[in-house]
């Protein structure tokens, strides 16, 4: 997954977006290759969430275009899954964990008989197998987010968009979920576009990091992360390359947040 | 998909067109004779009866009668409701002791008290006023209790630290905090007051729109009946919207 010449699956072609009279993003141009894990960082309001919504088709760009798998994005598609930051609002409170995962399977038209096995497998992958019959209100924040991830995997999409998914969680849960996501991504080969405001998280997770300025959101820098995989919470964070990148981008982060 | 209350210009036009369509539909049904004219007069006949009633003065007096009755009862109910509500609202003890009693009183249909009032006081204007007050006091009283009970505990601590007297607390912290809720309660109270005013007129035979439409129905004078209904609807509309505007202004600091 390190700088391999896979085909381009996401293309931002000079994308600009105006919303409510405000210019949210400007001249966004970069590509994401198949199987890559790309992190987008920036201050709040820099439009990083907007980028995800553009890829998922929930927003349409004012100028420029976004292309997924070579085709222009006109609307949401099942091939692009999105994991929202506010997980409690994205889950169906009246369905159990199994029921929530089932929703994605119902959407792709899987016959009822096959669903049970797939649900069980997916919940197992995110470590929620014993909680299948629990309702979201009975699950902790971390578990709810895992459930959302399981549901997005159930969609069978080749592209996974994650919008600051761990922002509302405590540090320990965040770390274990980071590793889980890395494992899932490596396992299934999905392409991941991951938005965060946490520089270290971006460096830890990504193959590349896209840093954005704010107001309007513009690309400040795109950096390759030459750290070895699989990543490890202790050793990776002590790698000289990690520390070097961190120092290098620290200044940029301060600039971005100014 | 959230729709706000303030709909822009085009929507207003569409709404008015919709209203016009509704009246036109009414006209078609009345003209077709599918429903007997005695039950459904045409919009034109209703309009004529309305204009006639309002200009020749009969309906004017009746309107005044109903509205005055409603306002008097409502004002009195609001005063008592706010006063009592404040007293109950600031005391957690009182709230605990009175909660089931208040819940029961709230659930009691005010019109059910009418026979009791007749028994006590007789079929007099005073009885009607009393019923209006008794019936319409609850939304305001309960809203006041709620408004006071929901004062941020932090503000309560602040008032204690500043050694505010009980009266000062009510006047400077409790009431301002409760005002949005109180206005909402008063708006509901006004709706109840109108209903009870009409009920009172129908039962006690007092001059007003309630009695007027009852008579019109007895004599099968449909246009007058409908005109009266329209006028009562207008009273409800104007009073409700008037207070809604006040409510909006007053609740601006919230959220």
């Amino acid at each position, binding site marked *: 997954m390190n700088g391999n010449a896979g085909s381009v699956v996401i293309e931002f072609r000079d994308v600009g977006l105006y919303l409510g009279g405000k210019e949210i993003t400007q001249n966004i141009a970069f590509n994401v290759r198949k199987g890559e894990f790309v992190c987008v960082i920036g201050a709040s309001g820099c439009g990083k969430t907007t980028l995800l919504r553009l890829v998922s088709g929930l927003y349409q760009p004012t100028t420029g275009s976004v292309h997924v798998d070579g085709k222009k994005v006109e609307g949401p598609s099942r091939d692009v899954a999105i994991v929202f930051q506010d997980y409690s609002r994205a889950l169906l409170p009246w369905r159990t964990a199994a029921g929530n995962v089932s*929703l994605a399977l119902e959407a792709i038209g899987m016959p009822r008989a096959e669903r049970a096995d797939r649900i069980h497998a997916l919940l197992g992958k995110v470590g929620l197998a014993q909680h299948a019959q629990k309702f979201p*209100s009975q699950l902790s924040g971390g578990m709810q987010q895992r459930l959302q991830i399981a549901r997005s995997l159930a969609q069978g999409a080749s592209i996974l968009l994650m919008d600051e998914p761990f922002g509302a969680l405590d540090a320990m849960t965040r770390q274990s979920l980071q590793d889980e996501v890395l494992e899932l991504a490596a396992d299934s080969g999905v392409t991941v576009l991951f938005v965060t405001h946490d520089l270290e998280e971006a460096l830890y997770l990504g193959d590349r990091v896209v840093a954005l300025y704010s107001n309007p959101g513009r690309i400040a820098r795109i950096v390759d992360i030459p750290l070895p995989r699989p990543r490890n919470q202790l050793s990776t964070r002590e790698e000289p390359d990690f520390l070097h990148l961190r120092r290098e981008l620290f200044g940029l982060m301060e600039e971005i947040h100014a | 998909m959230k729709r706000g209350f303030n709909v822009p210009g085009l929507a207003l036009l569409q709404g008015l067109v919709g209203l016009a369509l509704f009246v036109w539909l009414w006209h078609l049904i009345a003209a077709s004779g599918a429903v007997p004219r005695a039950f459904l007069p045409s919009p034109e006949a209703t309009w004529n009866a309305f204009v006639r009633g309002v200009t020749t003065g009969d309906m004017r007096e009746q309107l005044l009668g109903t509205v005055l009755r409603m306002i008097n009862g409502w004002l009195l109910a609001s005063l008592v409701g706010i006063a009592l509500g404040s007293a109950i609202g600031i005391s957690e003890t009182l709230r605990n002791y009175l909660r089931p009693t208040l819940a029961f009183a709230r659930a009691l249909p005010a019109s059910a008290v009418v*026979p009791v009032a007749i028994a006590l006081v007789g079929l007099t204007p005073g009885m009607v006023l009393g019923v209006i007050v008794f019936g319409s006091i609850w939304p305001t009283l309960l809203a006041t209790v709620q408004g006071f009970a929901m004062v941020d505990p932090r503000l309560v601590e602040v008032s204690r630290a500043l050694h505010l007297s009980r009266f000062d607390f009510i006047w400077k912290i409790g009431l301002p905090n409760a005002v949005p809720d109180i206005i909402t*309660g008063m708006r509901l109270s006004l709706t109840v007051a109108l209903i009870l005013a009409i009920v009172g007129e129908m*039962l006690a035979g007092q001059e007003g729109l309630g009695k007027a439409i009852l008579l019109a129905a007895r004599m099968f004078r449909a246009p007058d009946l409908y005109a009266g209904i329209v006028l009562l609807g207008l009273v409800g509309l104007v009073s409700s919207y008037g207070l809604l505007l006040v409510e909006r202004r007053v609740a601006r600091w919230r959220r």
Partner: protein
Amino acid sequence: MSGWRGFIVPAVLLLLAEAGFRVFGYVGDTLAPPSAILRGFVEAIGDGSMVTSTLQTFATVLGGTVIGAAFGLVVGCALGFWGLLYRFTYITIECLRPIPSVALLPLSLMIFGFGYKMEIAIVGFATAWPFLILTYSAISQVEPRLLEVAKVFGFGPVGTAWKLVLPAAAPRLMTALRLCVGIALVVAVTSEIVSNPQGLGHELMIAQETLRPHRMLAYLVLVGVIGWGLNNLLLWLQVRMFRHRGEIDTEVAA
């Protein structure tokens, strides 16, 4: 329900009333002590009138609420899903809604005469508008995040409505039902007091007119208890139905 303290006040009031009547030896035709009220209950149950009138009022509450809720649900959903329809009808609705249901009593009486139809029509009218407004509110304020999930999963309008919007709105629809049943009871009793010679309201008036205060007050208490009981029953049902969701909409009837 809060603790025992809440019941002290009614209990004390009842005791005082009882004592007051006995001490002052008041035997009148306007009021009655609690003990006499109990006697009134026994009497009314005994001669069958209490049961009959209760069933009559219940029948109109049920019939009227069903009509009003059906109307409100269908139209409210339609308005919630199709913004254009909403924009065309909202002014008309705002004009029809403020008409006090009492004002329609003479009209209903004129058309249907005494009996069930007349009262059910009024109750239907009275419950239709609140139910419509609350349904519209519930449908149009569904969590936008859920609607986005529906879009991403590619559910069409029917799928979105069935799998996401309606289940999401269900608790608020239940609240609407609870509030409307309360309204229905009030309107039904009012209709019976003012014009319709059947049901609890009518019994109340008869008791007053025949100078039997113990019976009148018994019916008054019954009406209050029924109103309170219905609300709490539906509230309990609502909590049970939606407990697993974690959010409880316990908006109480105002």
